[in-house]
């Protein structure tokens, strides 16, 4: 079973908050992001894998007291605000959780040539020659 499976809904909800462009992903776009994240997680120690899934679970229930809804049910802007708050949380574990999650989301998205090209990144092994042609 895939490592993300138990928390896929929260992962996608968080990914959209972290990276608004993710809201435009179709099912195959999500599959590409998640494949990269899965592969990266699979190479991490088991402890790190467990931590990220645990963090996603905590994240999903975190806003319930304040917003009366789970994280994955909140509007995108509110989800972004929740993550911003967590970035300033007193506990380093929560801050690290957000940092780890955003790293995975950015990896899943920006390492894909189609997305890096869309922001104007055009590096090529051909260097200056690629610019001039």
């Amino acid at each position: 079973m895939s490592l993300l499976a138990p928390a896929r809904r929260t992962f996608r909800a968080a990914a959209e908050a972290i990276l608004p462009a993710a809201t435009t992903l179709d099912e195959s776009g999500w599959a590409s992001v998640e494949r990269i994240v899965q592969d990266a997680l699979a190479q991490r120690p088991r402890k790190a894998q467990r931590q990220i899934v645990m963090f996603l679970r905590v994240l999903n229930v975190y806003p319930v007291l304040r917003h009366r809804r789970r994280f994955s049910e909140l509007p995108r802007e509110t989800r972004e605000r929740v993550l911003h708050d967590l970035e300033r949380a007193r506990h380093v574990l929560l801050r690290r959780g957000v940092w780890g999650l955003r790293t995975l989301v950015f990896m899943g998205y920006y390492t894909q040539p189609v997305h890096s090209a869309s922001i104007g990144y055009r590096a090529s092994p051909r260097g200056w020659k690629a610019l001039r042609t």
Partner: protein
Amino acid sequence: MSEAVTCDVAIVGSGAGGGTVAAALAPLVGDGLRVVVFEQGPRLRDDEFDGGELTMAPVLYEDGGGFLTADGTMTLAFGRVYGGSTVVYTGTSLVAPERVIRGWRVPGLLASDLAERSAKYMQQNNVHLLSPEEINDNNRLFAEGCHAAGFTAEQFPINVRGCVGSSLCNLGCPNAAKQGTHRVQLPAAETQGVEVVTRAEVLRVDPQKLRVRVSEKPPGGKGEPSTWAPGEYDVRARVIVAAGGSVGTSALLLRSGLRARLPRLGHGFTCHPAFILVAEHAQPITNWVGHPKSFFLDRAEEEGFVLETCMYFPFTTAKNLTGLGTEHAAMMQAFERLQMILVLACDRPVEENRIEVDRSGRPVVHYTFTPAVVESLAAATRAAARIFFGAGAVRVHAPTADPHIITREDTERLDERITAEHFVPGTTSVSAAHLMGGCGMGGSAASSVCDAWGRVHGVPWLRVADSSLFPDALQINPYLTVMALADRTAEAVRRDLPELSMVAAT
């Protein structure tokens, strides 16, 4: 069952230190001695360097470049491949400052000696300055911005041959232009008969003995299979040279139980903690093409920081920008208009910052940002903001400001906007690639691990030849100094070898 192998010199690691020792000791092979280098990473074919973040980082770096410190607040980047970190470094080549080496107070170590040895490697590695037409906008704007802000930028000498400006140095040059040890010293050593065994991790060292595990090439993975069959080996050697890098060597010696006689082992770790700053210009600039690192501003002595030009790839940039959501995405969308500066703090060794190993022998790096480091990062960010605006940028992303975006209207208030209190460990993205210390040089085992020739105190068969030797931060880019120190270690090995006969196997 493990296989038994005998050699005269065993070198652990093939990076800046190990590659240098291998080349310096290669003439011994002509005298009938056997010199073997063990490298845990793979050897890549030239056509396997494709410049992709996803395809290269996991192959070239330890933990894919995401090795985290114990509390998870900083990532450490270091190579794990034939050539070590020299495969992924940018190739800026600076000689150790005289004032720093004097400050180290290592008996018998002179800055002039390091400068002389560095000069030899600068020649071997084709170190030179790029011509103005090879410099891209990202770099040119840094020099112009420095000028406008009242600073003087210096140009980095770099070690390339036939560079076409792919900008992909940190993913391994796809054009074999960068003159790392994998291009210069290791091939020279192999031509003379030194054996380099890849995918060969040294698990522990004992008196004149190493335990080595050779791994199989994973199916579909990059790199050549090892020249030795997969399995475990007991290698006997008259002398062992540890050159696994600051983290690798410290971890190896720690898991081999050497702390009992070397109380300073693993201590004195420094790493020039760094973050990237980006600024947005109104027009596209050339940033994804050309050598990424042409200029720097050295404020180490005065304010404890160095600024360097840099340019990273989309994922690395996204990860290293602090924040998320709409504001972060807007900066990333402006990628082709981004100017980038790398901010490095000159940290000092403190007791908390040290390398340990966990129960399985894996390295664990403890690192706490001292108030002085955080102040330096904030001061560096203020200086960088002035440089960006001096170069014409319209807004700057500053991790030590809240909110992170600084506009031109803020230029009069930079001292208020950018302050140390906005540095939040675990949220502010910090990474380091200049890993130093762990087996620092000094006068005795009470205060250090090695002497000025890389000889481990009280352990005649064991030498160190890498960045772990640094007793304190170098305050500039370290690879040339690593090579100069490794050259000294090799010289001492040559000198001492006649007295280092093999003791009877136990």
